[in-house]
């Protein structure tokens, strides 16, 4: 089974794009963060309102039905901050809110284009319905395209941001540099495929938090597989050193 919900969409220019849907986990995280930020903003706004109210009462004296007016105002403010928060950020940040940024997800239109004000507004107006009885969460879990009511109405999807592969940051020993020169001359580095290179790179990048024993096992296993691929008779080097050298040699070889 695939871990991710991948979908294909067709843009208006008839280009087919593939995306990974955000998934309920990321959307829950985004919502939790957003409600924290939103709560903080609402708190600040209500404090300002309280201060203003105090000032107004001093200047205006008593108005009829003062309490009712103030209550109405409060409800309006809460509603405004609630819808405004999501609409503002989703429009300004092209489908992202602070929470969505944190969870690395983004709202797009069904045809792959960025969302505009109208979509963002529709989504946030329907949010209270999605939140009541957690209807939205159930709809995201049960529907194939993970759409809540707001997504259906606005014609939007929530996807994961594709991350570019980070630049390699692991240190490489001096010994490996000289060994790589040697490997380039004496062995058939070009027998390695890009997939093999990616695996070796991944190992070198991720080896430090690994369990000591597992890391030793894995490195000697990978080194042995790599040795056979490039046609080396036997391995007289320390496995990780050898893998570093192969990594360098492959890079140099592919530059030519």
């Amino acid at each position, binding site marked *: *089974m*695939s*871990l*991710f*919900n*991948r979908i294909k969409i067709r843009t208006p220019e008839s280009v087919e794009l593939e995306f*990974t849907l*955000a*998934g*309920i*986990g*990321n*959307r*829950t*995280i985004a919502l*939790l963060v957003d409600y924290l930020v939103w709560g903080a903003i609402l708190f600040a706004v209500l404090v300002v309102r309280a201060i203003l109210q105090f000032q107004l009462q001093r200047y205006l004296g008593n108005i009829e039905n003062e309490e009712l007016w103030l209550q109405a105002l409060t409800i309006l403010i809460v509603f405004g901050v609630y819808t405004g928060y999501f609409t503002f950020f989703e429009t300004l940040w092209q489908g992202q809110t602070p929470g969505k940024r944190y*969870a*690395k*997800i983004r709202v797009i239109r069904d045809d792959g284009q960025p969302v505009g004000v109208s979509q963002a507004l529709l989504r946030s107006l329907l949010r209270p319905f999605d939140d009541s*009885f*957690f209807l939205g*969460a*159930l709809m995201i*879990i*049960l529907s194939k395209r993970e759409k809540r009511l707001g997504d259906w109405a606005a014609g939007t999807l929530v996807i*994961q941001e*594709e*991350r*570019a*592969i980070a630049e390699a940051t692991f240190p490489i020993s001096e010994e490996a540099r000289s060994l790589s020169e040697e490997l380039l001359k004496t062995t058939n580095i070009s027998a390695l495929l890009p*997939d*093999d290179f*990616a*695996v*070796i790179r*991944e*190992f070198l990048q*991720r*080896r430090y*938090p*690994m*369990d000591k024993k*597992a*890391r030793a096992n*894995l490195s000697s*296993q*990978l080194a042995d*597989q*790599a040795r*056979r*691929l490039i046609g080396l008779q036997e391995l007289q080097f320390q496995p990780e050193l050898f893998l570093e050298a192969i990594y360098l040699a492959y890079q140099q070889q592919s530059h030519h």
Partner: protein
Amino acid sequence: MSNLSPSNPIQPLSIGNVVSASVRLYRSNAKRYLILVLRLYLWSFVPIYGWAKSVEIAARISRLAYQDLINQPESLTEAYQKTDRQIWNFFGASLLVGLIYSALLMGLIFAYFIVSVVILFLIGMLTGGRTGGSELTGTSFLIGLVGTLLLLALIVIAFLVWLRVFSRLFIFEVPLAIEENSDAANTIGRSWTLTKGSVNRIQLIVLVAGVLTWVLILAPTFLVLGLTMSILSPSGEEPSGIAVLLFYLMLFLGNGLILPFWQAIKAVVYYDLRSRREGLGLELRDRS
């Protein structure tokens, strides 16, 4: 090959994706998992053997989920043959985990006792039989305050220790269900080594999964309960026996529905930790 990240298939999973993947696993295997939950519930009424069986069945759900993740799905029978022979090891492992938590509790009680005795002793020393004197009551008040703060700190520390241990033992039954040549003590050790350095991640995963659990159980439970309550016991009256019975039934049902989700979470966490700590899936393909 494993399929860990969409852009790069051999990278570890993010917290959100661990949770989403578990939901997806559950969704596409709901029938199989729920059959197992039914059996687990029935066995849990049988003392000792049935309890051991319950632990084993829960772990079997994790095994099925894991096999799905590594693209080697198993049938219910295949999984049964692998986990059933370990049944007493599952029982032993649960007992051991129970012992660990009891030991923690004993430690807390002991520390609490020591701190209280020391404080009482100090107060006694200072007041030393004499009574009255406003200065003395002032100092003993101060000691009392410091003592209360110390006890509060003790409780906070105890909670943090418990949370840490809980995270380290979170997947204690999963290695036993999946790995060959594992036993009761061994599987706990595996959980301990695998989770090293991932305590915070596990706690966040549990938090997000916990929020979803509440959402999924609470929403339907309250809906059904609210409706039936209003029908069965009209306003003001005490809740009728049927309503109370229904409440427990709903709880039982909700718990059963959520169990496979948590077993799937454990399977995905195990899979992800093995990829982080042991480079699971990293291999050069054999082209010869």
